């Protein structure tokens, strides 16, 4: 048992941290926010060609770096801290995961290398527009028609859905209520329409996608070992863990910023950091950040085990719900406390606090909020 980053993992994390400190400062984030794309394509290209992050946990056989989910999580934590605007989460933590879990070898060989080369972004669309994040959220349908498959339906809350090159979409067979399958298709496939959904959190883009009689070859149906329902569940759990890691990074940044600001800010001739009310709030923030981090690191290990097929991977649903529920609540609480302790300036557009405060809410609701995941855990425990 060893529950700390290896030296190599620490190096990867530190490299990411210093790179992001350079390329994702407040000005860069605000510039990206102002575009419809939501990120700077030049920066993404630099990430793909210099840092190779898009390939981080793709097996070497498919052109990837062959690292694990612990490394993905370490990266996401840093991205959360620096609010990086990029299609990393959608491409790597949804698209690549979907292919790793649900695709057969041929499909992996077809799509993963193109992602690793940095030419292709990807995302996952499954939620038909409801406040649920499991297989019951899928409302789109598919049917066989000769040698082809025809897809119909719509999706909301699709991360980077309007810009991704490759879509992995979930649909249930027409007439069959329960069976879900996943399909991979280029976003430019005829019949696909996509629209940006502008969001309160401007540092990550959501979109709606509609499929109208979209015709794809049978080979577009992902057909790995798992059933479509099982695969989708695992893909969502892996994405939730990555998102929880981002939440930890954001929480840490809010704590750090709060300690720094309150140590400068003077009221009644004292730094406000010297007031016990401020200290104790900061202590509660630190508690939440550290507890959240413990949850995420454990979940990262479980995710890694799940991806490598180990028995410990069976804990994935629990670990994902533990991490996502705790981190969602912690990030929102910590960001809210930060805003409060910054006082008036925290309320301005000019200071960065509101960017994190908004990210806290958007990531809380994305893939299920605290109450949602707690009810999921309650069902595991009690029913």
């Amino acid at each position: 048992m060893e529950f700390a980053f290896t030296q190599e993992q620490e190096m990867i994390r530190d490299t990411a941290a210093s790179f992001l400190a350079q390329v994702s400062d407040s000005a860069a984030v605000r510039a990206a926010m102002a575009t419809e794309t939501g990120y700077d394509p030049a920066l993404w290209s630099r990430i793909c060609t210099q840092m190779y992050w898009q390939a981080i946990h793709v097996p070497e056989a498919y052109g990837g770096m062959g690292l694990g989910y612990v490394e993905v999580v370490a990266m996401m934590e840093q991205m959360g801290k620096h609010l990086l605007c990029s299609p990393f989460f959608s491409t790597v933590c949804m698209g690549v995961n979907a292919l790793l879990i649900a695709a057969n070898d041929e499909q992996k060989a077809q799509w993963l290398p193109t992602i690793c080369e940095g030419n292709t972004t990807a995302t996952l669309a499954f939620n038909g527009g409801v406040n649920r994040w499991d297989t019951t959220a899928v409302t789109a349908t598919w049917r066989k028609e000769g040698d082809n498959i025809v897809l119909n339906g719509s999706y909301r809350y699709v991360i980077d859905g309007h810009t991704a090159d490759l879509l992995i979409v979930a649909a249930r067979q027409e007439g069959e209520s329960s069976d879900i399958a996943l399909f991979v298709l280029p976003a430019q496939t005829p019949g696909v329409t996509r629209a940006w959904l502008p969001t309160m959190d401007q540092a990550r883009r959501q979109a709606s996608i509609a499929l109208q009689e979209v015709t794809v070859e049978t080979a577009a149906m992902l057909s790995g070992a798992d059933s479509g329902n099982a695969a989708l569940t695992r893909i969502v759990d892996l994405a939730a863990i990555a998102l929880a890691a981002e939440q930890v990074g954001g929480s840490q940044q809010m704590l750090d910023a709060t300690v720094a600001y309150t140590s400068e800010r003077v009221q009644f001739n004292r730094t406000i950091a010297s007031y016990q009310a401020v200290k104790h709030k900061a202590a509660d923030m630190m508690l939440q950040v550290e507890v959240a981090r413990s949850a995420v690191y454990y979940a990262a290990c479980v995710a890694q085990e799940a991806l490598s097929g180990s028995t410990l991977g069976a804990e994935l649903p629990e670990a994902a719900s533990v991490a996502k529920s705790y981190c969602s609540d912690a990030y929102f609480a910590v960001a809210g406390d930060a805003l409060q302790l910054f006082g008036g300036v925290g309320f301005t557009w000019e200071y960065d606090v509101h960017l994190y405060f908004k990210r806290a809410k958007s990531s809380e609701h994305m893939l299920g909020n605290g109450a949602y995941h707690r009810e999921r855990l309650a069902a595991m425990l009690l029913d």
Partner: protein
Amino acid sequence: MKLSFSAEDEQFRQEVASWLRDNLSGEFEKLKGRGGPGDEHSFPQERKVWEQKLAQGKWTCVGWPQAYGGRGCSIEQQVIFFEEYARARAPGRMGHIGEGLTGPTLIAYGTQAQRDKYLPGILDGTQFWCQGYSEPGAGSDLANVKTRAAFDQASGKWRINGQKVWTSLAHESDYCFVIARTDPGSVGHKGLGFFLVEMDQPGIQVRPIEQITGTSEFNEVFFDDAECSSEDIVGEPGEGWKVAMGLLGFERGVSTLGQQMLFQNEFDEVVRLARSNGAASDPVIRQRIARAHTELKIMRYNSMRMLSGQSTGDGSLQKEALIYKLFWATWHRSLGELAMDVMGPECEILDAPPYALNRLQSMYLFVRADTIYGGTNQIQRNIIAERGLGMPKEPRGTL
């Protein structure tokens, strides 16, 4: 104790409601539910016209004594007026600083000349006021005023230099009351003056502050040799703190019940949404809605206690009044969070790019100011503990 209003008061309620029904229509229809905290940037010109309409019906300054041009309403009637005003979804008042703060201050501390000069414009809805209290870096430390006022013997006028911040609607105001230091060597409460300053002059610049909502209703106001006539200081030079504190006392009172009606409107919108999108069947959301409902109800009862205490003539601030700001501000912040969680993932989706928030989103973000301005929650707890419970004061530092 009795809960019901007198028959006379109920008749007054009918009168208010019916006037609003008849007059809040036509060109004013579009103002319904607009203005107010978080939406002050909406329709300022039209809302000024509405103020004049109110004045024609004698519905401005209903609590002022008749001797000063008001209606001289009883506390019960003022409560009724504010409740009906909010119930009718009449627009956020452009004149509330003048009516609620400047007027009462001049009636209490001003000269007859000052009253003659300024009260009519407030009463008839043609002159609007903003307040110059907060300064950058001062925050909750109100006495830490750096803005200076020097009397210029040559011109016979005060010259004001410095900066104020968080000034709501400064760009829409004709006058500003300003706390400035008249005694250059003084610190804290001492050596301040309370000035009535015309906004339209070269020495004053207003710069809007862009808020978390992407909109601006607060401003920075820069004073660079701004002028103020020697007749426009309220009280003596050096006595500004007394006037300023008296004015803060006017902030509490009957308008709390009107504010609660606005809260009720927001809460009702959350309930409607929960019923329509299915969140009302989520037991966790049900608990939160019930809790919000509970506390909103009690907020009203608490205000009734405050007002009954006032009407018995006991001047000291009672406990239920001491906790009120902390209570409502925290409640309102929770309502914002509840609204978002009732919306679920849809809470993220804007009406339009770049940043058109819907009303609940705007409320959710704007309420974050409530626990900060007018004394943060932390300052409120100090006040409650020190004044309400007699616990030791926080020491000032020596930095």
